[in-house]
C-alpha cells in the first residue's frame, strides 16, 4: 500500500490541508517533506495513523477542532486498486469512502495485512525517541542477539519479556528444586495441613465416637457390679434388722397364746354370729326404748282428744256453705251489677223510642215486634237496590235513546239535499296508477329531453366548425375522410422532411467535397519522393551498374555501383517514407469522386420530392375549397376540422333519431291522451304529463267527495241502528222497574209494622236496622236483670235456712249472714282438724307399738338360736349375750395369733415355725452387735456404687456431648476450596508451562529461519550507513548467548554492539540498519506499507545523512518512504543522492 494523497481536513492545527505524494516515479517512492519547526510534520504522521486506526478517545490533536469534528482522509493505492478513505470521529461506521458510505473493516484489514497500530508504530515509524530506545535496547540485549534481531524483524518487542514473565510465573508453581518451598504449591499444601490439623482438633470422629461408646458400656458394667455388691451387703444388714424387729413380734405371739389358754376350751364362734349377737342386743335395746316412748305418746294424745268439742251444726256447716258457694257468688256479683243494668235498660228504651219516632210510629210496641229478623231487612235492602237499579236502567235507556235520535237528526241534516251520489273516481285512479300510463309519460318526456339535448349538441358543434369568418348553420357534406386527410398530412410532412434532409445532405456533401479538394491539394503539395517513373529509372540504373560491376569488378565500377546503389536506396527509402502520403492521396481522390456522384444523386432526389410536395398541396387546396374552408388553412388544421365535422355530423344524425323517437312516442300516447282529456273534460292540453297531473288532481278531488258522501250515509245508518237498540233497551227496563217496586212493597210488608208508605225506604232502612238491634239488646238486658233478681232472692232463702241454728243472725241481710256463717265455719274447722290429728296419731303410735313387740319377740328367739350350741345355754337374753361374747373373744384371740404368726413369718421371710426356731436364743443385744459389725462393708459398697454411677454419667455425657456444630464441616469446606483452587492453579500452571515450551521452541525456530537474512540485510545497511566504516557484522558466542560484533574498517577492530565501546551515534546507526533490514523482511512477507521517518538524521554528518538517504531510497524501491525534516540540507542531500527519484514537498 502507498499513500497518494493525505488530507488533513480537520486535524491538529490543519484545516483542509492536503499532502500530495503523487505517483510513484521511476521505480522509486521516496518523499522528503520539508517544513519549518512546528509546521506539523509529526501531526501529519499521526494523522496517517489516525486514518488507519481511528481517533483515540483522548487525542492531543483536537485543540483547534473539536474531537467530534476531526476528519482525516487519504487516497491510497494497493497494487492496481485505489481507495479513497476518510476517518470520522463517530463511534460506529467511522471509516467512509468518497461517497461517505461506510467502508468495511475487511478492506482496511486487507490493506494493512493485519498490522495493528502498535506494530505499525514500531515497524513502520521512526523518530528520535524510538531510535534512542532502540539504541538502548541494543545495549540491554546482553548477548541476546536472537532477541535483538527477532524484535527488530518482528516488532514483537515485548514478547521476549512476556516469555520471561511466564517463566517467572512457572517458577512460582514449581514442584521441586530451590525455591520450591515457597511456591504456590508449597503454600497451598501448608494451608491444607493447617486446616486439617484444626479440623481434627475440632471434629469428633467415628473412631472417637466408638471409643466413647466403649467407655460408656464399661462404665455401665461397673455400675451393675457395684450395685449388686451394695445390694447384697445391705440385704445382710436388713436380715439382722428383721430378726431384731421380729423379737417383739414373737413376744406378742406368746402373750396371745397365754390369753387364749386362760379362756379354756370355749368353742369358736362364727364371727358373723358374734357380730349378729351384738347387733341383736343393740336392736333389742333400741326397740325397748321405742316401746316406752310410744306408750307415753298414746297416753298424751288420748288426754288431749278428750278436751276438744265440735257441734253437729258446726260439723254440717261446711258442706252447706260449699253447696251455696256458686249461688253466693252470683248473688254477691248480681247485687253489685244490678244498678248498672237498670241504667242500661233506661238508655235502651230511649233509643227505641227515638227510632220509633223516626219511623213515624207511636206508642209502646212489644220488643219482639221491634226485633226485625236479619233476612227481612236484607230482603228489603235487596229489593230497594233492585228497584233503584231498574229505575237507573230505565233512565239510562231513555237518555241514550234521546242521544241516538239527536245523532240521526244531525246525520240527516248533514246529508241535506244530496239526492244524487257524486261520481266514482275508481276507474280514473286505475288509469293513472296503470304502469303503462307512467311508462308512456316517461317515454314522452325522455324523447322530448333527448331531442332538446341533440339540438343543443348540434348547435355547439356547428359553432366550433366555424373558421374565421366561415360559419355553418348545418353540417356540410365532406369530400375527404379523416384517414385520407391524416395520410395527406403525413405524406406532406414526409415529403417536407425528405426535402429538408436532401438539402442538408447537399450542404454537407458540398462541404465534404470542399474538404476533400483542400486535402487533395495539400497532399499533392507535400510530395518529395520520386514518382514511380523516377523510381523505376533509379532501380534500372542500379541494376545496370551492378551488371557492369560484375563484369568489370573495378574500383570505379564498384564506386559507380555503390553510388547508384545509394541513390536507389535513398529513392526507395523516400518512397517508403512517402508511401503513406501517396496512399492517403489516392484514397482522398477516390473519396472525392464518390462524394461528387452522391451529390448529383441528392440533387435529383430533392427535385422529385419538391414536385411531389406541390402535387400534395394542390390536393389539399381542392379539398378545402370543396368544404368551403379557407385555402390557407393547412393540412393539420384540416384534420382537426374534420374531427369536429365528424362530431357535427354525428350530432345531426342523433337529432334526427331523437325527433323520430319523439314522433313515435306521441303516436303511441294518443289513445291515453284522448282518455285523459275526456276524464278531465279538457281537450286543449297538448302536454301529456300536465294532462296526467291534472287528471291526478281530478281523481283526488272525486275521491274526497265520494268518501265524504259515503261517510254521511254510514253515519245515518249507525244512528238509526242506535235508536232502534236503545228503544228495545227501554222496553225491557220499564217492566223490570215496576216488578222491582212491587217486590220492595212486598218486602216492607214483612216488617209487620205500621210504617207509612210515604216513608222513603232508603232512609228508613238504617233506622230499622238500628231499631232492630236496640230492641234485641233491650230484650237481652231485661232478661239479665230478671235473672239477677231471681238469684238474689233464691240465695236469701237458702242462707236463712242454713242460719236457722243461730237465731241472732237471721235479722241480718243475706250476704252479711253468709259472712258470719263463714267465720263460724272456719273456727269449727280448726277444732275439728286438731281432734282428728290426735286420733290419727293415737292410731299410728299404737300400730308401731304392736310391731315393736313382735320385733322384740323375734330378737329373743334368734338369740336363743345363736346360743343354742354354747355349753352354758340359757333362756335369758343377757346370759346368752355374755356366753356369745366370751366365745367371740376366744375366736378373736385365735385370729390374732394367726396374724402374729404370719407377721413374724413375713418379717423374716420364712414360716412362723422357722422364725421362732431362728429367734431361739437371739436377743436384741446380740443382734445389734452383729449389725454393728456390718456397717463398714455397707459404706464401702455404697461408695463403690456411687463411683460407678458417676463414671457412667460422665461417659454418657461424653457421648452425648457430640454436638452438631458446623465448624468441622466448615473447615472441611475450606479444605475442599483450597484443593479446588489448587487444582485450577495446577491446570493453569500446566497450560502455561506447555505454552512456554512451545513458544520458546517456536521462537527459536523463527530466529533460526530468519537470522541469516536479517544479518545479511543489517550488514549491508550498516555498511552503507557508515559509509563503509563498518563493512562487516558477525556474531560471537558468549556465556550469555551470541553477541553482535561490528568490524571497523579503519583499524580492523571489532566492537561489541552491546557494549559502551561502540559510540552512541554508531549504535543508532546500527539500530537504523536493523530496522531497515526488518522493513525488508516485512516486505518479503508481503507487508509493504508506507515507512514514516521523523527527522532522525539530524545528528548525522553529511556523509552519513547521504548514506541514510540512499538507504531510504533503497527502501522506497520496495515500498514507500516518507522522511519529514525541517532541515533544508537534508532535502538537498536527498536530491543530490537520489536525483529526480526523490520528491520534495514543502509545507
Amino acid at each position, binding site marked *: 500500500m502507498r499513500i497518494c494523497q493525505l488530507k488533513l481536513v480537520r486535524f491538529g492545527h490543519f484545516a483542509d490541508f492536503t499532502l500530495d505524494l503523487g505517483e510513484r516515479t521511476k521505480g522509486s517512492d521516496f518523499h522528503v517533506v520539508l517544513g519549518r519547526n512546528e509546521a506539523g510534520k509529526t501531526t501529519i504522521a499521526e494523522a496517517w495513523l489516525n486514518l488507519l486506526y481511528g481517533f483515540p478517545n483522548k487525542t492531543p490533536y483536537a485543540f483547534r477542532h473539536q474531537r467530534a469534528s476531526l476528519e482525516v482522509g487519504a487516497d491510497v493505492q494497493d497494487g492496481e486498486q485505489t481507495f479513497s478513505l476518510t476517518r470520522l470521529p463517530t463511534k460506529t461506521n467511522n471509516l467512509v469512502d468518497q461517497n461517505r458510505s461506510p467502508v468495511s473493516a475487511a478492506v482496511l484489514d486487507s490493506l494493512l495485512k493485519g498490522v495493528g497500530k502498535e506494530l505499525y508504530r514500531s515497524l513502520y515509524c521512526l523518530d528520535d525517541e524510538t531510535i534512542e530506545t532502540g539504541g538502548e535496547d541494543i545495549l540491554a540485549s546482553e548477548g541476546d542477539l536472537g532477541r535483538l534481531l527477532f524484535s527488530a524483524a518482528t516488532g514483537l518487542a*515485548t514478547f521476549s519479556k512476556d516469555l520471561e514473565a511466564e517463566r517467572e510465573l512457572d517458577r512460582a508453581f514449581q514442584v521441586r528444586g530451590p525455591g520450591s518451598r515457597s511456591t504456590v504449591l508449597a503454600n497451598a499444601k501448608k494451608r491444607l495441613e493447617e486446616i486439617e490439623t484444626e479440623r481434627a482438633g475440632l471434629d469428633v470422629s467415628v473412631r472417637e465416637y466408638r471409643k466413647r461408646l466403649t467407655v460408656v458400656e464399661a462404665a455401665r458394667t461397673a455400675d451393675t457390679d457395684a450395685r449388686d455388691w451394695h445390694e447384697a451387703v445391705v440385704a445382710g444388714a436388713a436380715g439382722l434388722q428383721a430378726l431384731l424387729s421380729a423379737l417383739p413380734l414373737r413376744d406378742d405371739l406368746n402373750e396371745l397364746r397365754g390369753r387364749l389358754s386362760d379362756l379354756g376350751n370355749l368353742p369358736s364362734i362364727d364371727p358373723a354370729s358374734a357380730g349378729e349377737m351384738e347387733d341383736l342386743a343393740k336392736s333389742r335395746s333400741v326397740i325397748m326404748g321405742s316401746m316406752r316412748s310410744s306408750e307415753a305418746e298414746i297416753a298424751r294424745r288420748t288426754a288431749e282428744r278428750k278436751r276438744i268439742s265440735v257441734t253437729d251444726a258446726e260439723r254440717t256447716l261446711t258442706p252447706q256453705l260449699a253447696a251455696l258457694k256458686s249461688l253466693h257468688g252470683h248473688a254477691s256479683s248480681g247485687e253489685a251489677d244490678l244498678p248498672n243494668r237498670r241504667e242500661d235498660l233506661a238508655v235502651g228504651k230511649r233509643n227505641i223510642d227515638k227510632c220509633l219516632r223516626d219511623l213515624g210510629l207511636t206508642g209502646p210496641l212489644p220488643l219482639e215486634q221491634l226485633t226485625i229478623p236479619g233476612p227481612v231487612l236484607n230482603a228489603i235492602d235487596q229489593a230497594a237496590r233492585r228497584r233503584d237499579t231498574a229505575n237507573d236502567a230505565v233512565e239510562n235507556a231513555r237518555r241514550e235513546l234521546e242521544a241516538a235520535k239527536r245523532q240521526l237528526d244531525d246525520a240527516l241534516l248533514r246529508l241535506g239535499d244530496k239526492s244524487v251520489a257524486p261520481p266514482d273516481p275508481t276507474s280514473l285512479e286505475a288509469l293513472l296508477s296503470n304502469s303503462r300510463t307512467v311508462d308512456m309519460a316517461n317515454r314522452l318526456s325522455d324523447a322530448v329531453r333527448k331531442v332538446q339535448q341533440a339540438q343543443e349538441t348540434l348547435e355547439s358543434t356547428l359553432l366550433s366548425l366555424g373558421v374565421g369568418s366561415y360559419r355553418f348553420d348545418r353540417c356540410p357534406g365532406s369530400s375527404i375522410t379523416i384517414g385520407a386527410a391524416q395520410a395527406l398530412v403525413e405524406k406532406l410532412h414526409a415529403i417536407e422532411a425528405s426535402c429538408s434532409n436532401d438539402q442538408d445532405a447537399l450542404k454537407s456533401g458540398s462541404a465534404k467535397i470542399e474538404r476533400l479538394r483542400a486535402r487533395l491539394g495539400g497532399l499533392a503539395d507535400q510530395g518529395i519522393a520520386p514518382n514511380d517513373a523516377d523510381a523505376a529509372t533509379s532501380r534500372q540504373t542500379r541494376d545496370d551498374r551492378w551488371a557492369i560491376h560484375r563484369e568489370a569488378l573495378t574500383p570505379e565500377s564498384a564506386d559507380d555501383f555503390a553510388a547508384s546503389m545509394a541513390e536507389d536506396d535513398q529513392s526507395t527509402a523516400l518512397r517508403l517514407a512517402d508511401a503513406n502520403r501517396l496512399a492517403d492521396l489516392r484514397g482522398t481522390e477516390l473519396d472525392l469522386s464518390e462524394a461528387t456522384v452522391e451529390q448529383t444523386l441528392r440533387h435529383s432526389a430533392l427535385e422529385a420530392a419538391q414536385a411531389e410536395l406541390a402535387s400534395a398541396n394542390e390536393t389539399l387546396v381542392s379539398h378545402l375549397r370543396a368544404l368551403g374552408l379557407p385555402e390557407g388553412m393547412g393540412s393539420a388544421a384540416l384534420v382537426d376540422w374534420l374531427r369536429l365535422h365528424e362530431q357535427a355530423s354525428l350530432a345531426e344524425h342523433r337529432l334526427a333519431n331523437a325527433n323520430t323517437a319523439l314522433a313515435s312516442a306521441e303516436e303511441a300516447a294518443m289513445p291515453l291522451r284522448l282518455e285523459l282529456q275526456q276524464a278531465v273534460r279538457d281537450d286543449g292540453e297538448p302536454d301529456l304529463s300536465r294532462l296526467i297531473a291534472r287528471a291526478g288532481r281530478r281523481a283526488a278531488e272525486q275521491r274526497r267527495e265520494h268518501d265524504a258522501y259515503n261517510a254521511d250515509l254510514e253515519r245515518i245508518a249507525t244512528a238509526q241502528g242506535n235508536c232502534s237498540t236503545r228503544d228495545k233497551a227501554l222496553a225491557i227496563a220499564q217492566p223490570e222497574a215496576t216488578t222491582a217496586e212491587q217486590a220492595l212493597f212486598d218486602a216492607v210488608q214483612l216488617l209487620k209494622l205500621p210504617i207509612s208508605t210515604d216513608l222513603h225506604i232508603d232512609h228508613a232502612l238504617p233506622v230499622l236496622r238500628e231499631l232492630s238491634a236496640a230492641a234485641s239488646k233491650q230484650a237481652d238486658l231485661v232478661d239479665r236483670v230478671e235473672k239477677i233478681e231471681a238469684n238474689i232472692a233464691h240465695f236469701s232463702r237458702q242462707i236463712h235456712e242454713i242460719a236457722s241454728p243461730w237465731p241472732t243472725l237471721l235479722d241480718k241481710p243475706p250476704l252479711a249472714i253468709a259472712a258470719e256463717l263463714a267465720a263460724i265455719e272456719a273456727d269449727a274447722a280448726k277444732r275439728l282438724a286438731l281432734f282428728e290429728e290426735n286420733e290419727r296419731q293415737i292410731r299410728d303410735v299404737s300400730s308401731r307399738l304392736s310391731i315393736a313387740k313382735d320385733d322384740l319377740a323375734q330378737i329373743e328367739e334368734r338369740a336363743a338360736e345363736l346360743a343354742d350350741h354354747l355349753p352354758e345355754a340359757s333362756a335369758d337374753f343377757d346370759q346368752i349375750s355374755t356366753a356369745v361374747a366370751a366365745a367371740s373373744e376366744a375366736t378373736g384371740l385365735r385370729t390374732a395369733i394367726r396374724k402374729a404368726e404370719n407377721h413374724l413369718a413375713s418379717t423374716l421371710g420364712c414360716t412362723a415355725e422357722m422364725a421362732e426356731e431362728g429367734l431361739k436364743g437371739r436377743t436384741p443385744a446380740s443382734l445389734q452387735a452383729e449389725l454393728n459389725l456390718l456397717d463398714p462393708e455397707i459404706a464401702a459398697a455404697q461408695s463403690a456404687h456411687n463411683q460407678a454411677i458417676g463414671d457412667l454419667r460422665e461417659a454418657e455425657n461424653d457421648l452425648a456431648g457430640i454436638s452438631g456444630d458446623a465448624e468441622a464441616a466448615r473447615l472441611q469446606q475450606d479444605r475442599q476450596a483450597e484443593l479446588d483452587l489448587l487444582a485450577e492453579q495446577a491446570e493453569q500452571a*500446566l497450560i502455561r508451562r506447555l505454552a512456554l515450551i512451545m513458544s520458546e521452541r517456536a521462537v527459536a525456530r523463527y530466529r533460526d529461519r530468519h537470522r541469516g537474512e536479517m544479518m545479511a540485510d543489517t550488514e549491508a545497511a550498516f555498511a552503507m550507513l557508515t559509509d563503509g566504516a563498518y563493512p562487516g557484522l558477525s556474531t560471537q558466542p558468549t556465556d550469555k548467548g551470541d553477541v553482535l560484533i561490528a568490524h571497523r574498517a579503519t583499524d580492523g577492530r571489532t566492537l561489541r554492539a552491546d557494549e559502551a565501546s561502540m559510540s552512541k551515534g554508531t549504535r543508532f546507526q546500527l539500530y537504523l540498519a536493523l530496522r531497515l533490514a526488518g522493513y525488508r523482511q516485512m516486505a518479503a512477507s508481503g507487508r509493504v506499507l508506507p515507512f514514516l521517518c521523523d527527522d532522525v538524521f539530524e545528528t548525522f554528518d553529511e556523509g552519513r545523512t547521504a548514506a541514510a538517504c540512499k538507504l531510504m531510497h533503497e527502501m522506497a524501491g520496495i515500498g514507500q518512504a516518507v522522511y519529514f525534516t525541517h532541515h533544508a540540507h537534508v532535502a538537498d542531500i536527498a536530491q543530490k543522492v537520489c536525483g529526480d527519484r526523490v520528491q520534495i514537498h514543502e509545507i
Partner: protein
Amino acid sequence: MVKLLHTADLHLDSPLRTLALRDLGLRDAVENATRAALSRIVDVAIAEEVAAVLIAGDLYDGNQTSMKTAAFLIGELQRLDDADISVFLIRGNHDAESRIPAKIAWPANVHVFSANAKPVALGDTGITIHGISFSESRAPKSLVPRYRPVAGQVNIALLHTSLGGAAGHDPYAPCSISDLVETGFDYWALGHIHKRSVHHENPFVVMPGMPQGRDIGEDGEKSATLICIEDGQIRLEERATSALVFRRAECDLSEAETIADVLTKIRQSIRNQVGETPTVLRLTLTGQTPAAWQVRRDADLINESAQDAAPVGRVWIDKVVLQLSTTGADEPAAGAADEIASLIHEVAGETGFQDIALDVIEDLVAGLPGELRDLFGTDPDRRYEHSKRLTTLAIEHAVARMSGASEDVE
C-alpha cells in the same frame, strides 16, 4: 388431606466444589449449604404440617468420619419429632460407604427401614410406607421384587436406585420404570439421581433430586417434593430448598468489537442472572469477536472483572470459560506473529511434544497433595486425553500471549 415431603441425596456436610469459594463473602453467606437445605426441608415440613418426611437414601456423603454430621442430622430430625412428624428413611450407597454407624440414637419419630423391613402404616391415614435399606455400597440387582403392596392402602415405597442408569451415577439397585409401574404401588419415592424427574404419573415414580447442588454439574434450582393425598388421589408440588444455586450462562460476544464491549456484555449477562436465591455462576463466553485474542490473553483480567461485576451477596462467579470461535479471522496476523503462531502449532503437533506434555504433567502431579493425584487421570489413556486437552489450551494461551506482545490493549 394428608401431606408427605419426599427428599433424597442430602449428602450432608459434603463440601461445595466451586472456585467462587475463594471469595470469603460466599463462604460466610452459605455457612453450610447442605445443612441449610436440610433445615429448610424441616421448616417446610413443619409449615406444611406434613404427616411424614420420606428420605430415600444418601443422607451422608461417602467415607465421612465426622460424628458432628450425624449429630446435626439428629438435631434436625428431633425438630420434626417435636412437631409430631414421622420420618421414614432408607440408606443409600453413600450411607453404606460412610463410616457413620447405621444405628445411632435416632429420635422416636424416625423409622429406618432395614434390609428386611416390614411395611409401616402411617397412623390411621390409610397410607403404608415401604422401604428397603441395602447395607452394601453396591447393589447389583433390582430390589423391586422384594416390595409387596398392602391391599386397601395407599402404598408408598422408598427405593434408592439408579433406575436404568444415569450419567455421573453408579448403577445401584437397577430397575426400569415399567418394573416400578407394574408393582401396584401408588408412589415410588426414589433417590440416588441428583436431578429431579417425575418419571411416571398414576402411579407416580418420582426422583426428587437432591435438595442442594454442590457444584456446577448439579446446577439449577433444587427442591423437595410435597405429596398431597386426598381421597386416594395424589397431587405433587415442589418446595425450593437450595441455599445456593449453581447456574450456567452463556455470553455471546459476537457483537463485541473491543475489550470494553466484551466487559459490558459480561456485566449484562451477570446482571441477567440475579435471582431470589444466591447464585454461583459459570459464565461461558461464546461467539466470534475481534477481541478474542485479548480475552484469551487477559483471561485473568476478564475473570476479575466478572467477579467485580457480580452483585455483592447475590451472585458469585465460579469461572469464566472461553469457548470463542476460532476461525483465524479473530487473530491478528501480525507479521512474524502468524508465522510464529503457525510454528507453535507445528511444535505442538509433533509427536514428541505429547511425550513432553505427559512428562510435564507427571512432574507436576507428583508434587500435588494426595487428593489431587488423579486430577489429570491415573490410567495412561485418561492421562493422554488430558495431555491433548491441555496442549490445545496451551496453544491458545501461547498464541494469545504472542498477539499481546505486538498489540497492547488501548
